[in-house]
């Protein structure tokens, strides 16, 4: 349990920290610190087990059918990373408390930071690759928020966008790679996959999986040629840079390389791809770092270079190289986080990060200078600091590498060159900033920062020195545990020590140090020749690519959809027609053999009527009222057809809906123009007619082909279970309220939303200010005939009785909530029509929003009731009651559900109708002079 809690605590703390800002900045930072500390303490409690090589596992089943489970696993590698994430996270929280100014919203900063921390912990502790991918994407998202934290800076926004684009694109590739990996290993559980090395490497899908996963790792870890996003992410506040680029975000890619090392490493493809990319990145990063003037940019490219170093070591594929990689991950995190914080201190206190304007700061800021000297020397690889240890091991592994494309010494030489460059830029960072003469007049008087800002890097520097002096004691066990988790087996005998005797690596180390010093001495001339060379700008290229993609997308979109609905619909229908006929014409067709029913004369009469009415709609569609009448005729025939073809429920529903629809459209026509103007362009009409005929032929042909074939249905179950399981003889109704009740629940919700949307659209009293005056007075002012009014009042009572009857019998005979709701709605709507809106409003004080809400609540409560009995949502029950006189009564809980349906239908229908009926001509706020029409003025 405590293992998932380590991941969860930061996520729980994130919203709390955001809220605690109301109690002040200290409370906010304190909350964030407390949650991180809790996770940190939980993590440390597992240290003894991890050092003994016993991984801890915990988790829950989540979506077992997809292989996605909340499995967590803590081994040496996960522990090392979690330690860095939480340990440095704690220091960053303290540092950020003092770094951020009073104007910066600290609440959101801490919330983003904790969310990011939790996501990182998820990556390193997940034992399921799908879960890992979820956390992987979460880090991309939360780092986007962190990098773009200073929303007012365009650099921050662009940097965040670039980081998100690059890392999320890589993440997408990685999803594919992981899915392939899981497919080959037949499990998404990471610890299972790690056992399948042979099967995976022998699989023909190994190479694609490797390429896709490497795309994810290399983008995340800023490996060449994807390194360019990292320097632009430096627009973030310094605590973010220190956290993301020393211990966390960019290390995620390296982590995954290490995690999947047992299954992916060892092949030639792995070696050449990973080691070469790492080597190139290491060299390029170090070279660019030497010629940057912004302190953070130097550190950014140096980070790129060091990540390349780790990648290269993992690429070598030998256990000792993996051990060196693990050690360097630890060392780099410690000195790089310290250096970032020092860069932030310099920026904070001196007001600039430009090396050309800084110098001699050691006198003004002795503490920061001491820390910078130690951490910078470690980055340069000066003994006896920890950076020296891992850099020497790297050089050692490079000399041991016997063969790189037939070349025995190339890698060692290039690695030494990178080390030399690294010495030069590290010492430049220290010497040009803290020593020598001040080079420019600074706005601020630089001085050492408050303890809250220098203590966190000081702690890290203590580690840098201590690990350097006593590597075996302090880090030996942890590094060995992590490295054996990487290799998945025993490590060769080794000893972490400063002194290994005289060997080639020591020689190369010394050579790198000396040549680095010489290079710094000759910095001016080196800089001149660098400036003379070409400098491809990654940002410009990136922007170019993005602009091109956006333009392409825009061209395609606007080519298909220029804002014209007609054009869009024509494309949609045309696409369906082309695809449908294309498939039909390219596949063999056989006529169906199912026997057809005879066409009785009455059916033929109905068919002819339908054809005539449809023809009339087409011919008359410009006269809207006549077209509407004919649509009503079609609806009537469809409903008769349902009745004829054994669907009494559908017939009832269709005829009731028909009535309501016609009333609604009539009401709308009172406000809309009566006539549709003739469209110009017979070519357009011909095209539309062609599309329509094709679509009609397709649909008719498809339904014909379907009906003349035999079929299998799953309805046998419903027919058998309707009475015993659902307690009703009307199978359609039982399906609606019981078997498929969840669908119905969704549908009444949609219906309710549609009605509310109509109400909202018409709430402001939308008039037809431009409309021609209505030829007949709108319904609300109808003081219609007395006969009609009286008849309708009697009808109301009768209709409600009929509605109740239809509702009650619905479970066993045609009827039910839908039909009953429509019948009652029609009865109520008739009152509005017969008496006019004003009378009906005063006599029927019903707010139709209420039944919609209650209907959904009743339906939901019925469904939730099943939970109380321990059944799934919407499981129904039947009670049998003995009522005197009436006899035995069945009450199915589904009936309450049907009540909900009924209420929603009544509310939605009447809300739509009355909203429309209440519209008054000329009510609107806007009126175009001279077009309002006489009626509008008369009404006013």
């Amino acid at each position, binding site marked *: 349990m405590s293992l998932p809690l380590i991941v969860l605590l930061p996520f729980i703390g994130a919203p709390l920290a955001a809220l605690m800002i109301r109690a002040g900045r200290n409370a906010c930072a304190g909350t964030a610190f407390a949650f991180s500390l809790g996770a940190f303490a939980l993590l440390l409690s597992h240290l003894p087990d991890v050092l003994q090589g016993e991984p801890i596992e915990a988790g829950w089943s989540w979506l077992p059918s997809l292989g996605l489970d909340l499995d967590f696993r803590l081994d040496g590698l996960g522990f090392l990373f979690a330690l860095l994430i939480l340990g440095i996270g704690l220091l960053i929280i303290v540092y950020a408390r003092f770094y951020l100014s009073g104007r910066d919203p600290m609440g959101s900063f801490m919330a983003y930071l904790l969310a990011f921390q939790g996501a990182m912990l998820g990556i390193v502790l997940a034992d399921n690759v799908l879960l890992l991918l979820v956390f992987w994407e979460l880090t991309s998202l939360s780092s986007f928020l962190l990098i773009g934290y200073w929303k007012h800076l365009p650099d921050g926004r662009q940097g965040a966008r670039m980081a998100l684009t690059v890392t999320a694109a890589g993440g997408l590739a990685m999803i594919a790679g992981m899915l392939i990996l899981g497919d080959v290993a037949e499990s998404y559980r990471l610890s299972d996959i790690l056992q399948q090395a042979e099967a995976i490497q022998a699989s023909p899908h190994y190479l694609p999986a490797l390429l896709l996963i490497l795309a994810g790792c290399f983008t995340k870890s800023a490996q060449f040629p994807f390194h360019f996003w990292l320097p632009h992410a430096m627009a973030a506040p310094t605590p973010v840079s220190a956290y993301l680029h020393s211990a966390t975000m960019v290390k995620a890619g390296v982590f995954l390389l290490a995690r999947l090392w047992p299954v992916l490493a060892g092949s030639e493809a792995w070696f050449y791809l990973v080691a070469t990319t790492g080597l190139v990145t290491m060299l390029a990063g170090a070279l660019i770092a030497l010629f940057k003037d912004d302190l953070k940019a130097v550190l950014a490219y140096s980070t790129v270079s060091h990540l390349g170093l780790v990648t290269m070591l993992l690429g070598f594929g030998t256990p000792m190289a993996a051990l060196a990689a693990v050690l360097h991950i630890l060392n780099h995190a410690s000195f790089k986080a310290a250096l970032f914080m020092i860069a932030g201190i310099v920026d904070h206190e001196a007001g600039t990060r430009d090396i050309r304007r800084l110098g001699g700061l050691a006198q003004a800021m002795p503490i920061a200078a001491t820390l910078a000297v130690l951490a910078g020397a470690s980055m340069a690889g000066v003994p006896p600091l920890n950076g020296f240890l891992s850099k020497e091991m790297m050089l050692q592994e490079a000399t041991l590498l016997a063969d790189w494309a037939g070349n025995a010494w190339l890698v060692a030489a290039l690695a030494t060159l990178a080390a030399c460059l690294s010495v030069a830029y590290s010492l430049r960072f220290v010497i040009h900033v803290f020593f020598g003469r001040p080079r420019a007049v600074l706005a601020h008087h630089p001085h050492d920062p408050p303890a809250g800002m220098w203590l966190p890097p000081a702690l890290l520097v203590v580690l840098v020195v201590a690990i350097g002096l006593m590597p075996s004691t302090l880090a030996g066990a942890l590094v060995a545990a992590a490295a054996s988790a990487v290799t998945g087996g025993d490590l060769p005998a080794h000893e972490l020590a400063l002194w290994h005797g005289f060997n080639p690596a020591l020689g190369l180390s010394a050579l790198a140090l000396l040549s680095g010093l010489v290079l710094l001495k000759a910095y001016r001339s080196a800089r001149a020749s660098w400036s003379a060379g070409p400098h491809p700008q990654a940002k410009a290229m990136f922007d170019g690519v993005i602009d091109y993609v956006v333009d392409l997308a825009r061209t395609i979109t606007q080519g298909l959809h220029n804002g014209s609905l007609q054009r869009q619909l024509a494309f949609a229908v045309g696409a369906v027609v082309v695809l449908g006929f294309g498939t039909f014409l390219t596949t063999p067709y056989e006529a169906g053999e*199912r026997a057809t029913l005879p066409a009785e004369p009455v059916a033929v009469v109905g068919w002819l009527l339908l054809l005539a009415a449809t023809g009339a709609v*087409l011919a008359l569609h410009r006269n809207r009222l006549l077209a509407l009448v004919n*649509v009503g005729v079609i609806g009537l025939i469809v409903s008769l057809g349902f009745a004829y073809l054994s669907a009494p429920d559908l017939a009832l*529903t269709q005829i009731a809906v028909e009535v309501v629809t016609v009333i609604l459209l009539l009401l709308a026509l009172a406000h*809309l123009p009566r006539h549709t103007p003739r469209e110009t362009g017979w070519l357009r009409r011909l095209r539309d007619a062609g599309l329509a005929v094709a679509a009609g032929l397709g649909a008719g042909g498809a339904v014909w082909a379907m009906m003349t074939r035999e079929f299998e249905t*799953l309805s046998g179950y419903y027919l058998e279970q309707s009475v015993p399981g659902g307690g009703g*003889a009307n199978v*359609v109704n039982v399906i609606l309220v019981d078997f498929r009740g969840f669908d119905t629940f969704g549908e009444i919700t949609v219906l309710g939303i549609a009605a509310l949307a109509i109400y909202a659209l018409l709430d402001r009293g939308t008039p037809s200010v431009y409309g021609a005056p209505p030829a007949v007075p709108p319904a609300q002012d109808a003081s219609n005939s007395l006969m009609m009014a009286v008849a309708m009042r009697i009808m109301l009572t009768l209709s409600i009785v009929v509605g109740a009857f239809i509702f009650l019998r619905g479970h066993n005979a045609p009827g039910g909530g839908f039909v009953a709701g429509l019948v009652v709605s029609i009865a109520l709507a008739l009152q509005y029509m017969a008496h006019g809106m004003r009378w009906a409003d005063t006599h029927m004080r019903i707010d139709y929003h209420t039944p919609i809400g209650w209907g959904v609540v009743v339906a939901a409560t019925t469904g939730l009731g099943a939970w109380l009995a321990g059944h799934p949502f919407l499981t129904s029950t039947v009670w049998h009651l003995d009522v005197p006189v009436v006899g035995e009564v069945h009450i199915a809980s589904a009936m309450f559900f049907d009540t909900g349906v009924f209420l929603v239908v009544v509310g939605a229908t009447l809300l739509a109708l009355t909203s429309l009926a209440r519209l008054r001509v000329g009510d609107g706020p806007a009126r175009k002079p001279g077009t309002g029409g006489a009626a509008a003025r008369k009404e006013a």
Partner: protein
Amino acid sequence: MEFLVASSVGVLTAAGVYLLLRAHTFPVVLGLTLLSYATNVYLFATGRLAINAPPLIDAQVARYTDPLPQALVLTAIVISFGMTALLVVMALRSWSASGDDHVDGGPAAPGTAPEDRR
């Protein structure tokens, strides 16, 4: 009988599509109504046609038509009503806001095809 149903679906679809492609709102609403009929009958027909076999369980009856498509179509009918209502109200709003009954809204609406303007 099957031919009558199939041809009705075809004719309703064709008429519906033609009206759907008109430039003014009300015919589009009617076209959508016709398409709804066609779709509902199409869906209903997936259970094949049967006469005098309603899915009402009775001990004396042995033959029932397929109830599942009927249940699907029943809700579809009601939802089509909700959709038609929403659409016609949107048409009304568009008409009252822009003074133009064209499906793309007002005459000044950007990027509209000019050939169908009044």
